[in-house]
């Protein structure tokens, strides 16, 4: 602070001559705090605080009483129930008779993961190593569940239903969305028309999508009923079979989310400097070569970022299964969010919070791994 504010100099005006100016200066000097404080406060109150509070739910048995909620500390029982106890089948799926094929696959995955993990000792710092250890542990656990349930011919639980939506769903959406974007980036007329049309589903409420799809896919009154009858499937009900129900869920999810991939990738494709492509065309490269050598490497950093965003949102899927099948048949289409929501409805707050926390853990580890090993790799390559 200036020491001689009282002496009025003709040159530089002394700060804070009047009260209003002093206030203005104080605001100006502290504007950094004023600018960021509201956002940080809101996030602390509505995101961080509840997240931490949620741990206490997950560690307790919560009961409604006349004077509010009653918490009784039960340790990790809510969690262990999901892995070993009564809810195991619901959450993990049936893991009991593990087939030889399942064991073989698991062994292969474990060897691959351990190889990757040991090899990274050479290059990684200890923080990086910690991250890799967590990723590796998660990968081994998830692959064990996969091998013991699906690959051994058993049913899967909400954990793998969610992962199915995330991994298979995002993969398919990414491929189709990118393909459409590539088509639309070609010299075709009516580009803007297609752009708008293809974009619309993203904006429609997931709920509306759920109902619309339910109507369209209705086997007795829906528009495809004559077709089903014609090919002799008049008795077939997609919602009665676990995999066809999951598949329908994925189709609806894709209907909604392909536009997101499409619009981002199209913007990326159109932002490639024209002269790169034109130079290659003049050199006589075929369109496949141009795509592989010029276009794809340039959009790859955007592509992985878009995929990451899509993955983050995919973990939260709840509306579609809730609307279309109510999680059924059985719990075949239940995502983890829906699982937690149903348990909440049954007033078991502790277990509900525990499942929510498991979802958080799954999301964070998966997305952080994807970010660190894929997205950062691409960004680093693009910068280099």
């Amino acid at each position, binding site marked *: *602070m*200036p*020491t*001689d504010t009282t002496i009025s*100099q*003709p*040159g*530089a*005006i*002394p*700060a804070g001559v009047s009260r209003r100016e002093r206030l203005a*200066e104080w605001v*100006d*000097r502290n504007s950094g705090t004023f600018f960021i404080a509201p956002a940080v406060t809101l996030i602390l109150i509505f995101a961080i605080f509840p997240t931490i509070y949620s741990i206490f739910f997950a560690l307790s048995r919560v009961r409604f009483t006349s004077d509010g909620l009653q918490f009784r500390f039960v340790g990790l029982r809510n969690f262990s129930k999901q892995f070993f106890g009564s809810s195991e089948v619901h959450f993990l799926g049936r893991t009991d008779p593990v087939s030889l094929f399942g064991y073989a696959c698991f062994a292969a995955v474990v060897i691959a993961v351990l190889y990757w993990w040991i090899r990274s000792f050479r290059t990684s710092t200890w923080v990086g190593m910690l991250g890799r250890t967590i990723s590796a542990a998660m990968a081994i656990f998830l692959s064990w569940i996969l091998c013991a349930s699906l690959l051994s011919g058993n049913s899967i639980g909400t954990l793998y239903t969610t992962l199915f939506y995330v991994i298979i769903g995002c993969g398919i959406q990414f491929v189709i969305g990118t393909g459409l974007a590539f088509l639309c980036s070609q010299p075709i007329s009516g580009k803007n028309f297609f752009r708008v049309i293809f974009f619309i589903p993203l904006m429609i409420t997931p709920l509306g999508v759920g109902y619309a799809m339910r109507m369209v896919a209705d086997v007795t009154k829906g528009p495809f009923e004559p077709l089903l009858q014609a090919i002799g499937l008049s008795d077939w009900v997609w919602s009665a079979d676990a995999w066809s129900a999951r598949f329908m869920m994925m189709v609806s999810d894709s209907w909604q989310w392909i536009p997101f991939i499409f619009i981002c990738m199209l913007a990326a494709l159109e932002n490639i400097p024209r002269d790169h492509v034109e130079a290659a065309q003049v050199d006589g490269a075929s369109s496949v070569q141009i795509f592989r050598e010029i276009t794809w490497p340039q959009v790859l950093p955007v592509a992985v970022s878009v995929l990451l965003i899509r993955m983050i949102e995919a973990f939260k899927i709840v509306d579609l299964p809730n609307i279309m099948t109510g999680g059924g048949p059985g719990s075949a289409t239940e995502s983890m969010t829906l699982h937690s929501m149903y348990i909440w409805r049954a007033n078991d707050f502790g277990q509900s919070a525990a499942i929510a926390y498991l979802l958080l853990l799954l999301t964070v580890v998966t997305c952080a791994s994807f970010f660190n090993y894929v997205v950062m790799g691409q960004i680093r390559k693009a910068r280099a």
Partner: protein
Amino acid sequence: MAEYGHKASVRFENVEKSFGDVKVLRDFDLEVEPGEFVVLLGASGSGKTTALRILSGLEQPSAGSVHIDERNVTEILPKYRDISMVFQSYALYPHKTVAENIGFPLRVRGMEKAEIDAATLDSARQVQLESLLERYPRELSGGQRQRVALARAIIRRPSVFLMDEPLSNLDAKLRGHMRAQLKHMQKSLGTTTIYVTHDQIEAMTLAHRVAILERGILQQLATPAEIYNDPANLFVAQFIGSPPMNVIHGKLDGQDFVTNGVRVQTTASGQIEDGVMGVRPEDCSLATPSEGTLTCKIYTNELIGDHALVTVEWGDDQISVKAPKDFTGEQGDEVGVHIPRNHIFVFDRADGRRVR
């Protein structure tokens, strides 16, 4: 606001600035008299902009203090320093018209609209912009934009002007024109001005005094003539002048500079093993091989226009000489180079220090 046309003095006191480990300014001392036009001259990355930004308050010095009118302003917010600055990119607000751009400094001070309009018109007139007031910056040419930036700087009648390479985005012809206008304006307003450039012609023509900066160290602060005629060290000597000063390596032995076995008489005296003799091309002249101070072979002969630039080889060094335009020597011919004794500067090569 300060009184109309107040002239402030500016003083940097032992200012240091580092970004992380990089020291950008070292022990920077500079005193500017009220009403003076000082040019900071230096190569790219020498810390000129950093010095200006410290004075304006956009950057805090790591050590030392800055004074305006003997008042320590190191800790004072930029807006209380009564400074205005013209940026290299002009920093015109693209969403405001020329008039709004020029009037902005008054508007943020909450002045009356009528007053602002009058002042805007007045300062636009000074830079001949009164017909363009309703346009947007994107509808102006480079020179016009530059003048808008100037008008915005003068409208407040600040006590100090700072200009960071204001002419570097203009073409050569316009630059000459704007240079004259700037000089005229500074003289008539009489405001203390600090001007950053790496163009030595701008520095020589505009400045009352030139401050030469290299790697964050002030090398010399003097009038243009002094800088040219009496450089403080080898860096300044080589930096100023075009083509640059010739350097000939050798050693100083008493009053004689010994190079490749030839003794050349100088005005300096001392005993330096590893020395450099400097002489400007325009001070040398050509002579017959036997008459010159040194006898060399012609390397090239370039006709520039009003003179010919002849480069000759002397040991490992090359010497450029400004010769009359009708000089006809060919590559490989032998010529003598005459170097007048009182135009020779001698430097210690170890630290670049001038030996007198």
